[in-house]
């Protein structure tokens, strides 16, 4: 359980809330794709926000979202490292059950079957989650989080050229899965 932010500075907290909390869904989405586990994603996002609050004094902008993402990414990498040293729980051992299903099969009906698009979004989410790192990260930052190449380069700490080649690779992998899926539907 992440620690409670100790600094008692309500004015700072107010500014932080206004600046950072609007990106909560964005941060949670990124954590879900990076960690592929909803509980771990929640913990990572909470830790990210507490770290961000601690370092909020040094935040000079301009964009809050990539700044938060860079912190979140570090938290998630720490989680990778933890999984790697915990023999019973590595990222490959415990993927979400959906990820064990072949890409070209439909998931079982979700309880929220009233969502007409649920199947589609489930399928696509599963395809994206099946991408390997670092391609998944780059792809999610671009396609789902709408970051610019420059912002992605900063978050992932790589040159822009690397962002482009990773993106090309990610899209090519996704396209193969995509076409296989369409074949299946036909």
């Amino acid at each position: 359980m992440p620690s409670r932010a100790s600094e008692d500075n309500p004015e700072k907290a107010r500014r932080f809330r206004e600046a950072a909390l609007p990106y909560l869904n964005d941060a949670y989405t990124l954590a879900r794709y990076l960690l592929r586990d909803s509980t771990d994603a929640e913990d990572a996002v909470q830790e990210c926000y507490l770290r961000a609050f601690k370092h909020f004094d040094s935040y000079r902008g301009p964009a809050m979202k990539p700044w938060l993402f860079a912190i979140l990414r570090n938290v998630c990498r720490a989680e990778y490292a933890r999984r790697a040293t915990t023999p019973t729980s590595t990222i490959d051992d415990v993927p979400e059950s959906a990820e064990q299903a072949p890409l070209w099969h439909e998931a079982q009906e979700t309880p929220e079957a009233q969502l007409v698009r649920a199947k589609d979004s489930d399928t696509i989410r599963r395809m994206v989650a099946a991408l390997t790192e670092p391609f998944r990260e780059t792809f999610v930052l671009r396609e789902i989080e709408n970051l610019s190449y420059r912002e992605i380069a900063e978050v992932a700490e790589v040159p822009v050229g690397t962002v482009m080649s990773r993106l090309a690779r990610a899209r090519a992998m996704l396209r193969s899965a995509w076409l296989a899926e369409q074949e299946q539907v036909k």
Partner: protein
Amino acid sequence: MTCDEAEILLQALIDGELDAGHARDVENHVEGCPRCAAMLKDYREMSLAMADAGVRYTAPAALRMRIEAALPQPRPMQSRRAVLRGFAMGSAVSALAATGLVAIVLRHDDMERIQSEVVSAHLRSLQAGHLTDVVSTDQHTVKPWFNGRLDVSPPVVDLTAQGFTLIGGRLDYVDARPIGAVVYRRRQHVINLFVAQTTSNERRNVKSETFQGFNIHRWSESGLNYWAISDIGKDELADFCRKFETAVEANKEG
């Protein structure tokens, strides 16, 4: 340009990151290369499908509450003391509720505090990009979207013909609980209709108030509390409430 080069630059073309000169080069290559053309077409389709399908996740309410609870609480200011104290309490109490120990219901004497939170939620919603989680003018898209996100199913009716355009729905937080917000537009004005559960089944007629310059109408019906809030005039908002209730009534009978 080789296909390998084009394949990298295609990305930048799709993502709008390519300058005009290079964009032309890539487009020229694609015109003469069926393989790259097929790739570009598929990539564009994938982007569109992803945007349509909704592949983002929504942070659980409990996570938001945990983060809120871990941050230093705002110190009460002179003018808004009651509001802020209520807010701080709401967060602490709801952390319990989130663990399933306590079920909170909106109590009548809390109405004052909740009202100011409704105003805050309305203000938040007007910031860019915060108005709707589900964007649709179709009530049959907006209403099911709430399922599984709330313990109530807010009535969603299309009032376009009556001059109030349904533009979508949103999950919001009032009293540190998730609450449904159905969003309508009247000319350039936004109307947020907040809907929350109440234990009482009794009907309470519309009460109209003005708070921080916004008009608020609140009423209760069939176990639901409603707050309609907007910067449109009092009479127009009253008109909205009447039309909403009539349409809900008609839906029940139909």
